């Protein structure tokens, strides 16, 4: 046996370790490196300089001055997560577990919220809850929108579709023979729900709560658009201001980013643990598994449907109508003048969209960035899920954790970490280009995409792939002809969802936007800053329709070849 052959065999015997190590290295560059860079620069950055001398002065200053911000951040995130989870648990239960009329419509209404673009959503709620807003007039008490409760309300409602996406499959997978047993023993619907359904769902509910909590900790949109005008600051706004305002304070920005990560990390850890528990609960039914809805009596069925319909009218349909009305208005009109105003509604704003080349460029750029990142994210999620659950690579548990890590990084801290790495530490030429946007989008999207893709990959039977090997199909052919068709429904769903989110992604876009590659969300943000409510409403309507069409098209992509 030649030396070359021996070397090859030795390397081959370590193939799982080598490949596993390479995967960890690749993932680490976009996950652990930004994390470590953020920690390190919190004691090395000073003012405009990313790397200065070691000093704890940044920490001392932030901890002395920003205590109120830390408290506000926690209250805001917990408040939003509590509101979203409460609403989500109720809606998901009613839609997935009962026989109420219009439940499919209700699901699509909530799901449609995913298409609503940033800034417009916040602007609409500001209109609804401002002093002369429609809801303010109806409320028996004063509600100041530029307040912490205002932030919690808007963020909480906005996160509802995500909660529903997490909870719905779990509700649907509950074996309702357990609920039937409770009913046979005399338990009513409420008692059964309270004593059987909710305990079964506890890990799922906790997972949804923790996911919204960690995402809200890092959210920038609501804090910037609703918190900041009212002088209410949370960690992401302070980080953003430190990073962009004059004079730049990178030191305190990295300290605050580190604090944000330290807040998010325990939540991330709990979330990861709870996810394990949810998969255990999903299999509770075994072979006698039954998935029939709870048969509510007619009056309760219609009553519950009415309550949900009213709720969605208040939190989704009315805001969308306000957006549509705004897009047809010549300027912002207070609610009490809507029906008496002499100025007619018109399509001027839509005509302006047709000729707005800046909008066209930003929309096209976002299409390129989000489209590329979506393809890479879905492909990456399938690959990583495959590695974790179906491959013989070493370090699979480590790969699992590292790929989930960006959830704890939060979007603002991740962006700052990318600035540190690609502008300061390893200036390899991607800062200020489309590459850094795609890479950041990808990093940010991988964890939640893996979460959706992994169960589909996990449940595939190995025999199918063994059959492919026996028939002589190459790895690529097996992937294309066996794996993709089997999980195509999941790919459609996650692809559409991911694209809709990335197309209007805000924090990464605004912090890392390249000079010559303007993106859509920052463009809308600047229009929002100008108080151009009619224009951003028209853009909001256009984006919502566009994303709905894209979603339909993505769902029509065939598994392999063929026509749409």
């Amino acid at each position: 046996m030649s030396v070359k052959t021996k070397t090859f065999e030795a390397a081959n015997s370590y193939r799982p370790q080598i490949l596993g190590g390479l995967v960890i290295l690749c993932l680490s560059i976009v996950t652990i490196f930004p994390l470590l860079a953020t920690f390190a620069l919190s004691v090395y950055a000073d003012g405009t300089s990313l790397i200065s001398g070691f000093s704890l002065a940044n920490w001392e200053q932030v901890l002395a001055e920003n205590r109120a911000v830390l408290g506000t951040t926690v209250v805001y995130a917990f408040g939003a997560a509590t509101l979203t989870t409460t609403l989500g648990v109720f809606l998901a239960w009613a839609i997935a577990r009962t026989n109420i009329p219009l439940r499919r419509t209700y699901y699509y209404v909530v799901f449609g919220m995913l298409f609503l673009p940033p800034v417009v959503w916040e602007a609409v709620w500001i209109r609804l809850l401002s002093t002369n807003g429609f809801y303010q007039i109806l409320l028996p008490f004063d509600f100041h929108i530029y307040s912490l409760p205002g932030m919690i309300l808007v963020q909480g409602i906005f996160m509802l579709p995500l909660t529903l996406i997490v909870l719905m499959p779990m509700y649907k997978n509950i074996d309702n023979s357990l609920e039937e047993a409770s009913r046979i023993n005399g338990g009513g619907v409420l008692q059964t729900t309270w004593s059987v359904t909710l305990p079964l769902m506890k890990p799922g509910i906790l997972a949804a709560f923790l996911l919204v909590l960690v995402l809200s900790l890092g959210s920038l949109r609501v804090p910037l658009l609703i918190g900041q005008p009212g002088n209410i600051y949370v960690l992401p706004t302070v980080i953003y201001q430190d990073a962009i305002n004059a004079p730049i304070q990178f030191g305190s920005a990295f300290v605050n980013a580190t604090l944000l990560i330290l807040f998010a990390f325990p939540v991330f850890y709990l979330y990861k643990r709870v996810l394990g528990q949810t998969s255990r609960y999903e299999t509770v039914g075994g072979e006698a598994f039954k998935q029939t809805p709870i048969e509510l009596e007619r009056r309760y069925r219609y009553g519950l449907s009415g309550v949900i319909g009213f709720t969605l009218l208040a939190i989704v349909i009315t805001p969308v109508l306000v957006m549509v009305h705004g897009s047809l208005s010549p300027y912002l009109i207070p609610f009490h003048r809507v029906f008496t105003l002499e100025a007619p509604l018109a399509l001027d704003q839509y005509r302006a969209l047709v000729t707005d080349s800046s909008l066209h460029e930003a929309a096209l750029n976002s299409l390129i960035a989000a489209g590329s990142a979506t393809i890479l994210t879905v492909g990456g999620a399938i690959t990583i899920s495959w590695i974790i659950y179906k491959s013989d690579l070493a370090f699979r548990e480590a790969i699992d954790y590292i790929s989930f890590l960006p959830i704890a990084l939060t979007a603002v801290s991740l962006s700052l970490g990318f600035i540190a790495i690609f502008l300061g530490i390893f200036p390899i030429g991607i800062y200020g280009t489309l590459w850094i946007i795609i890479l950041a989008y990808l990093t940010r999207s991988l964890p939640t995409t893996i979460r959706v893709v992994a169960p589909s990959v996990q449940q595939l039977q190995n025999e199918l792939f063994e059959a492919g090997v026996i028939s002589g199909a190459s790895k690529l052919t097996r992937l294309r002809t066996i794996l993709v068709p089997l999980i195509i429904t999941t790919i459609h769903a996650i692809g559409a969802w991911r694209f809709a989110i990335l197309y209007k992604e805000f924090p990464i876009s605004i912090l890392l936007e390249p000079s010559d590659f303007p993106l859509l969300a920052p463009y809308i943000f600047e229009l929002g800053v100008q108080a151009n409510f009619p224009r951003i409403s028209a853009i909001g309507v256009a984006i919502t329709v566009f994303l709905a069409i894209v979603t339909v098209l993505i769902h029509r992509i065939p598994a392999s070849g063929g026509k749409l």
Partner: protein
Amino acid sequence: MTPAHMRSDSNSRKTVVNRRSFLTAAGVAGATGLAGCVGGDGNGNGNGNGNGGTTGGNGDDDEITVYTNIPFEDIANAYEEAAGVSVNYNILGGPQPVTRYVAEADQEQYGVDVICNNSGVTWQLHDNDIPGELNVDEDTIESVFSLEGMRDAWEDALGDDVGRRTPPAQLLINGTHYNTDLVSDPPVEYTDFLNEQFENNITTQPYIQDVVLQAMEHYHGTETAEQWLIDYDAQGIDYLAGGGTLIESLLGEENMLAPYTNGFYASEPINNGAPIDVVFPRETYYATQTLTKPVNAPNPEGADDFIEWLLSREGQEVIQTLNGGSLPAHEDLDYGNDQVQQRLDERMEAYPDTPLYPSIQDPDEFWEYANRTEELIDVEIL
């Protein structure tokens, strides 16, 4: 926290579609296929312009890169038509044209030829010797210091060469906007803000108050200015951040008056028939939108040519049309919005002996007034 009004207001974001940026994007997107690993090889910016930087700058003679915070599409298109030079520009919010440049320059990444930002932010560049001296015709520089006292004030604070290093392209006059459905008798002096009808009906950006104190001190002396600020705050001011937010508050009839608001935010609603008007009281101050060529601009000649053109009558006429009408710095040109120009004329006629106050916002003065304002009224400036 950050120096406050130096954050200034963000303006509109418009960028020109140019072939290069699209090809860059398409090329990068096409080359992307690294599935989660770091992409790029150090040349991944795809600019192909030879500067080696990553900030979108260039070394080509037929291109310049601008960081700005005002609408720039019309300016870039007009310059491209006039000079055949492509303008790549990035419209960033508030002070970001300066801060982003500073952060990138700190890492020795130089990709910007011209910075167009508010004077309150730009002055900080003088402390660091960043503005390069322009190779621009002296008459052109002279023509853009149009309002009385402005040039003297700038030079006293920032040196004799301020005009040649950061000339103004646009004047930012902060007027008092009001809802015409709610207010029939708008204030013409600052003491009018203290009228009973305006109690709990005024909205103001909190971090502008230090400049207000500065202007009031100029007009009335320290004691009167400080007492006035305290009384004004006692009116129950609705402190909101962002000029656009204030105009929305007026349109939504949540407040009657929005003093110290840049007309930039109201021009378009006014043109569309909104019940908004503006008045320039006796005590009115203004700042500027300045142009700066960094000392390390990759295309310094291109920057000079562009700045000279933008300060010329041809360029200033484009400034005049921005966002429903704005005020160029050129001495012969009026506000681009007739209604606003009429209000400005009315103010000048009413107080011919009281010129507008050109606020100086260099960092030293800023800190002094910010601290004093925070002590006088419980408003967070910093």
